[in-house]
């Protein structure tokens, strides 16, 4: 128990026995479950899991079914992080008092939550967990919208995206505020590890998750989760969208160690223009009208500036 699972290549990875089950009610092609499978299969240790209210929770715990083959708890929208933090504290105390039946087992405590539940509504709960130093991992399934309630904007929704509470139309191009830098905010807590991941880069994901499991203290993971329903693309194209997200650098893959040291973990050989990422999704369709085309240029400039910033951070080692 608690050795790091040896996953050299995909063939080896495919011998994993999944602890997440099908016949859940997530949409066909939903990336949430691809991310969950990659996280869970990164270890053979016992797991104590939680999920905040949102697509993942609602669709995997439909009475009388559960899709989880591990201890799993749901309380509310805001508190998947504190739910596993409570379990983690209890485990620690029982261990100290010698009251664990199997003290050698080394469970991993993982909280899953959407961007609505992490960037907005569960923000202070997550911050509290990071500050108190619980030995937990919080994973954001970042589809940049409140998907489960029909597509309201969150503080993760990017500029120009049409959401039900920031719809595009005659007078507006949709969301007007830029996406919140939650990675930066979480790293500012001085936590041992924060990383941005994408399901298409499974090896990068597994490496980061395993590193997250190996450190003492809170870990923050932001995972881009292309949403066929709200981003408006064909379910078969989920991985194509993830490829576009990482290779346009809209979702750069990087990690921040001890709140300071930043490493870029993936450099696309051919960087794709952001326009292709936007064009692949119905939520940005209106940006291709003449009056809004200037926003595409601004998008590219923002992504370039973010990439330049990350590279400067990486070089300066501070």
């Amino acid at each position: 128990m608690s050795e790091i699972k040896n996953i050299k290549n995909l063939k080896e990875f495919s011998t994993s026995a999944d602890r997440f089950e099908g016949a859940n009610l997530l949409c066909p092609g939903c990336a949430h479950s691809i991310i969950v499978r990659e996280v869970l299969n990164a270890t053979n240790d016992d797991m104590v899991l939680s999920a905040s209210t949102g697509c993942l929770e609602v669709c995997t715990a439909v009475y009388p079914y559960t899709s989880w083959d591990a201890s799993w708890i749901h309380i509310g929208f805001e508190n998947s992080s504190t739910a596993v933090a409570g379990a983690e504290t209890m485990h620690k105390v029982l261990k100290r008092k010698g009251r664990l039946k199997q003290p050698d087992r080394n469970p991993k405590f993982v909280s899953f939550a959407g961007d609505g539940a992490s960037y907005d509504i569960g923000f202070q709960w997550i911050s509290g967990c990071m500050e108190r130093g619980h030995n937990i991992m919080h994973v954001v399934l970042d589809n940049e919208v409140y998907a489960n309630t029909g597509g309201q904007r969150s503080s993760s929704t990017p500029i120009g995206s049409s959401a039900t509470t920031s719809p595009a139309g005659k007078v507006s191009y949709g969301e007007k505020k830029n996406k919140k830098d939650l990675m930066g905010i979480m790293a500012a807590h001085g936590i041992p590890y924060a990383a941005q991941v994408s399901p298409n880069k499974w090896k990068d994901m597994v490496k980061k998750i395993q590193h997250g499991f190996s450190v003492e203290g809170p870990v923050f993971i932001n995972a881009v989760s292309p949403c066929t329903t709200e981003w408006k693309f064909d379910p078969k194209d989920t991985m194509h969208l993830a490829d576009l997200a990482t290779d346009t650098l809209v979702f750069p893959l990087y990690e921040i160690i001890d709140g300071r040291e930043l490493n870029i973990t993936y450099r696309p050989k051919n960087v794709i223009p952001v326009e292709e990422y936007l064009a692949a999704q119905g939520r940005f369709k209106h940006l291709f009208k003449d009056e809004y085309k200037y926003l595409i240029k601004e998008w590219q400039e923002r992504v370039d500036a973010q990439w330049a910033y990350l590279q400067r951070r990486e070089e300066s080692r501070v």
Partner: protein
Amino acid sequence: MAKKGWDEFEIGAMLRTFDGKIDDIAGTRQEDRAYSQNSSYTASVADWRLIKPVFNKDYCIDCQFCWIYCPDVSIVSRDKKLIGVDMDHCKGCGICVEVCPTNPKSLLMFPEQADEETEIANWPKKDEEEA
């Protein structure tokens, strides 16, 4: 075991995924697990599908891309070999076909009512342009 109705569970009851004791879940294959009536593994979403993937093992190189990217745990791989598709849990999204790198593809989507053997017999040939 008789199925319990929604009003027969105690309020706040814990749903158990497995019947009896299981010590090493991650080390136990699905076919060797005693799933309880509360695991969604025992349910089916086959009626969601309008199209379904058909697997043709002749071209498969066992790269496992379809295994890792299937959202619904429906690509069955054992001992690093792809065995087939779990048709109770597949929702017909088509991701497995998109990510399959062989030419011709080793997985293709067909209408739900299509006959597998006929489709495999008429499998498309190598696409020269793509290669």
